[in-house]
């Protein structure tokens, strides 16, 4: 039993939940894969925290513009309708609650929705936080995209974060390679299972009490907002 889906498939699964008209920030790393999976028939506006709405894909080779980059400092393009603004406006968009969705990576997510994704707390490591703390508390819906387990097999969904937190009670939903989990008052609720996973097996492997919200069929739950 069990099994998992690939990163691209997971990115497509997340993209399918982003509605028409949404303003979305994709964190650096794996979440940027979601951009390529956004449905072509929806107008979805990408925000990049260094000061742009309407961010487009990477340019053709030879057409990179050093004045036009994303939060990961990679060259990007601008789409029709794009807008530029300074950094305080850009982060005002976050903490002012104007972003509909952000997708972030994670080291850990707790069952209360605490997120840890900026520091492993290892001695000697050089700390860097960037915009992670602003995104975590700012967007209306905070989606996490992550593998359910580390390479060492440790679950990344936990009762309480052991790593330094990025934000408290901020995560809406966690999309993993094994299943989709909503953060609810009762803890993690499994809304969708991938491959051959079962709620019982995931509960055993994570050591977490999981609510079965799959409707018994493992079917996708409707992507309504859940309590944060």
């Amino acid at each position, binding site marked *: 039993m069990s099994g998992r889906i690939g990163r691209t498939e997971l990115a497509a699964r997340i993209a399918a939940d982003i509605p028409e008209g949404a303003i979305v920030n994709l964190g650096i790393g794996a979440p940027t894969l979601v951009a390529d999976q956004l449905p072509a028939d929806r107008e979805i506006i990408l925000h990049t925290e260094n000061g*742009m709405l309407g961010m487009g894909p990477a340019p053709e080779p030879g057409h990179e513009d050093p004045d036009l980059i994303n939060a990961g400092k990679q060259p990007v393009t601008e789409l029709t309708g794009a807008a*530029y603004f300074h*950094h305080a406006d850009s*982060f005002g968009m976050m903490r002012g609650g104007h972003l509909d969705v952000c997708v972030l990576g994670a080291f850990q997510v707790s069952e209360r929705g605490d997120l840890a994704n900026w520091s492993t707390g290892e001695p000697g490591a050089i700390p860097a936080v960037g*915009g992670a703390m*602003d995104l975590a*508390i700012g967007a209306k819906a905070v989606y996490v995209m992550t593998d359910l387990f580390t390479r060492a097999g440790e679950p990344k969904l936990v009762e309480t974060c052991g790593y330094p937190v990025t934000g408290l009670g901020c995560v809406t939903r966690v999309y993993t390679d094994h299943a989709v989990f909503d953060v609810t008052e009762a803890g993690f609720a499994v809304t969708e299972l991938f491959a051959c996973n079962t709620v019982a097996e995931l509960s055993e492997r994570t050591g977490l009490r999981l609510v079965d919200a799959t409707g018994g069929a493992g079917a996708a739950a409707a992507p309504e907002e859940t309590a944060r």
Partner: protein
Amino acid sequence: MIQKTAGSIDAAVADIPDGATVMIGGFGRAGQPVELIDALIAQGARDLTIVNNNAGNGETGLAALLAARRVRKIICSFPRQSDSQVFDALYRAGDIELELVPQGNLAERIRAAGAGIGAFYTPTGFGTELAVGKETRTIDGRDYVLEHPLRADVALISALAGDRWGNLVYRKTARNFGPIMASAAAMTIAQVDRIVPLGELDPERVVTPGIFVDRVVEVGVRPWLRDTDAGADAASAGPASTHEPPTPTSTSTSKEQHA
């Protein structure tokens, strides 16, 4: 006559003292005022506190200032990058002090300084290591951290074009910290691709009004803008506009129309 244009880049930075707090614009390399930083290195000021989003990339610009050991402390949000080797070595050797600030708090602290805000409550960072020891408050059921403004003696920023009153326009994501840093420093020095005659910048397009700018110095059109319509934009249809036809680029949807 108001004349903020500096005769030379060396003259523009000549009076930055040792021990100054210097804001440096840019996000990574985009919008980084490299020529002003080079002039600051040549000028020799030391024991500086630097405010920037990052802690230098590669070996040039801010990284070169760090390598010259002119910086005592850096206040930034994201020092660790794939090409931050200069900072990494100084930090590991204990030769530079780091104040890590969440990026939005960094921006808002700078904005608050420029806007005369005494302090502000922000939800960012609440309950994290970066808020330890800070005053907190619950307002309407939400938890906030008290953050204080961040001021500087000097801001070094980069813009696309400016005039002798100090009005500035920027280009694309190179704008980033420029407008807020300009407002938060006792002395703001802007390097621009082109200085244009007063009146050539469309007042509706001015992003940083000259009230926030003390000195403007021309450094020439950036290499990647030469022979493009964007290069012509650098002069805002000024006398040095290229007569070349616009070069199609993947970003050509950004063409701005000037009267």
